């Protein structure tokens, strides 16, 4: 049983294998409260799998993931979410047929049981919170638009907004700026920095310029293991990391 720590997230000895192939191999990673951590690495390094493991989508073969000193590996997805972990998928995953407002509303952390959802009403408190988030994600003018009509970048924002409505302490984003224009990227960087003031964030990203812009700490993953951890400059100048990216 791992001992209690001050870290928000403490991953120790995490391993998962698919038919003998170890996608994540004995990974140990700590995340402090209020930290913004970026995970980079070549394709197949196991980045998304790490998020899958933390969020409960994939079950670990061994190892532990402790969040606020609670073990996550045995909890189901919805319990992990309710504990305060929010997660955005690689391709924007929103409800295309619902409006922006309804998309945000579904994420509102109240009335998530069967009976609760039958009784759920849009009180002023709910609506105010949704407006607040909509403004943060630059979509306050589009609340009544069908989500499928949004641009790719706006869909990414909407999904981030859906996380924010849940008010999580840990936000995990899988490639949040993929498919965005340069202008949208800048806006997203600003948005993420604002979010990071109150919460911890884990981001998986390929875009190095974007990473340089936002990261405190960068973790480089390769073949399911941590290759290097440090600031962006340290990582960039590391010969091993260069080897991995160039050799790829």
């Amino acid at each position, binding site marked *: 049983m791992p001992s209690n720590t001050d870290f928000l997230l403490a991953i120790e000895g995490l391993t998962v294998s698919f038919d003998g192939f170890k996608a994540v191999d004995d990974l140990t990673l700590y995340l402090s409260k209020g930290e913004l951590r970026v995970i980079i690495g070549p394709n197949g390094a196991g980045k998304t799998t790490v998020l899958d493991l933390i969020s409960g989508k994939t079950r670990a073969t061994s190892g532990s993931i402790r969040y606020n000193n609670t073990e996550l590996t045995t909890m189901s997805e919805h319990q992990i979410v309710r504990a305060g972990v929010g997660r955005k998928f690689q391709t924007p995953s929103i409800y295309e*047929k619902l409006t922006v407002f309804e998309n945000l509303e*579904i994420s509102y952390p109240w009335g998530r049981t069967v009976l609760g959802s039958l009784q759920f009403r849009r009180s002023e408190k709910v609506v105010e919170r949704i407006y607040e988030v909509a403004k943060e994600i630059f979509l306050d003018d589009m609340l009544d638009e069908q989500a499928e009509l949004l641009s790719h970048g706006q869909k990414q924002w909407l999904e981030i907004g859906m996380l924010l409505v849940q008010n999580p302490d840990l936000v995990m984003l899988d490639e949040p700026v993929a498919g965005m224009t340069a202008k949208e990227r800048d806006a997203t960087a600003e948005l993420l920095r604002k979010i990071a003031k109150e919460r911890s964030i884990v981001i998986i990203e390929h875009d190095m310029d974007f990473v340089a812009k936002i990261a405190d700490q960068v973790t480089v993953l390769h073949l399911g293991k941590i290759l290097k951890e440090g600031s962006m400059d340290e990582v960039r100048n590391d010969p091993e990391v260069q080897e991995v990216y160039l050799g790829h």
Partner: protein
Amino acid sequence: MNTLSNHTDSSFGKLLYERLFKNKEGVIAFILLAVVLLLVFPLCLNTFRLNLTGKYLCYAFVAIGLVMCWGNAGILSLGQGMFFGAGGYCMAMFLKLEASDPESTAIQSTPGIPDFMDWNQVTELPWFWFPFKSFPLTIALIFILPAVLAFLLSVFYFKGRVTGVVFAILTQSMVACLWYFIVGNQGFFGGINGITDLRTLNGWDIRTESAQKTLYYVCSILLLFCILVSRYVLSTRLGRVLLAQRDKEMRVRFSGYNLTLFRIFIFCFAAVLSAIGGAMFTLQVGFMSPNLVGIQPSIDMVIFTAVGGRESLLGAVYGALAVNAAKTAFSEAYPTLWMFLYGATFIIIVLYLPKGLAGLYDDHIKKWIFKLKPKSDSGTTPPSEDLEKEVPYAK
């Protein structure tokens, strides 16, 4: 710009209105159906035809249940006949016990038990028949039994994330299992012949013309009521969650919902609706048999829903009426042609009309009506010969 009142829920009365009908078009569509069921049919059809229509309406209960769990929540059940049968058999067992009082069964070797038991050398009423001596208990069981059955049969599968085709196939084998169960237990459930010769309900003869007419009205009103309840459920957050998980299961889980419970709920909800239909069926037709609950009838129920429009509650009612009417009209006169036509219906609906008649109305007929009457903001009562196609999209 948005103001708070744009999105906040309105006062109670207005909220209820918005939830049940969404807008004026919704009200008109609902009233139209009510008028057809409660005025047009009783006035135009003789008692025999009306009784037949009442029988079709029983399938409409199942169809709206399927709209809820298949159309909206994406859970296809090929075993709704199981719940239809549960309701139907509950009612049939009650009626059979009433018809088997000791005087009318005096010639049997054991008077006072149903005739088929006597024929099968059963000498004592089995314990599971006792609840059906009481009418209130029977009514309660019509709701409880299918709900419990649906819960037991789905809880482990939904927990293990069994969905889609595998669940559909499982439900189909469940209904096959029930069929074999009834057929194999001739002494307890009447076997392949079913439970027949039902006469009275609490002393009221259900075979007379006036009784059949009354039962038709009860059935119609109950159906309209069930549509409103379903409509309400869909309009709540639960409805939106179900719709959302149909297309983006993972996203909903990562919004903190325990989807297992939502799926179980809607599956049970659909099961109870089917059971109500089954009970009304027994009352109007006067018997219940395993051949009404087998694999083929269960898949028929799905096709009623698909023809009407899998996402439309009102469409499902028209679908059930249309397919059954066509079946009655064709299957006796041209049985061969009917089977080809019926088989083709499955294919055509899937290939060309995935939204069924409701989709046809939405995409084509609605535009046409609006072109004719550009000033009216919603469709007026359409000519009655077009009724089958006038399926306002209840969304």
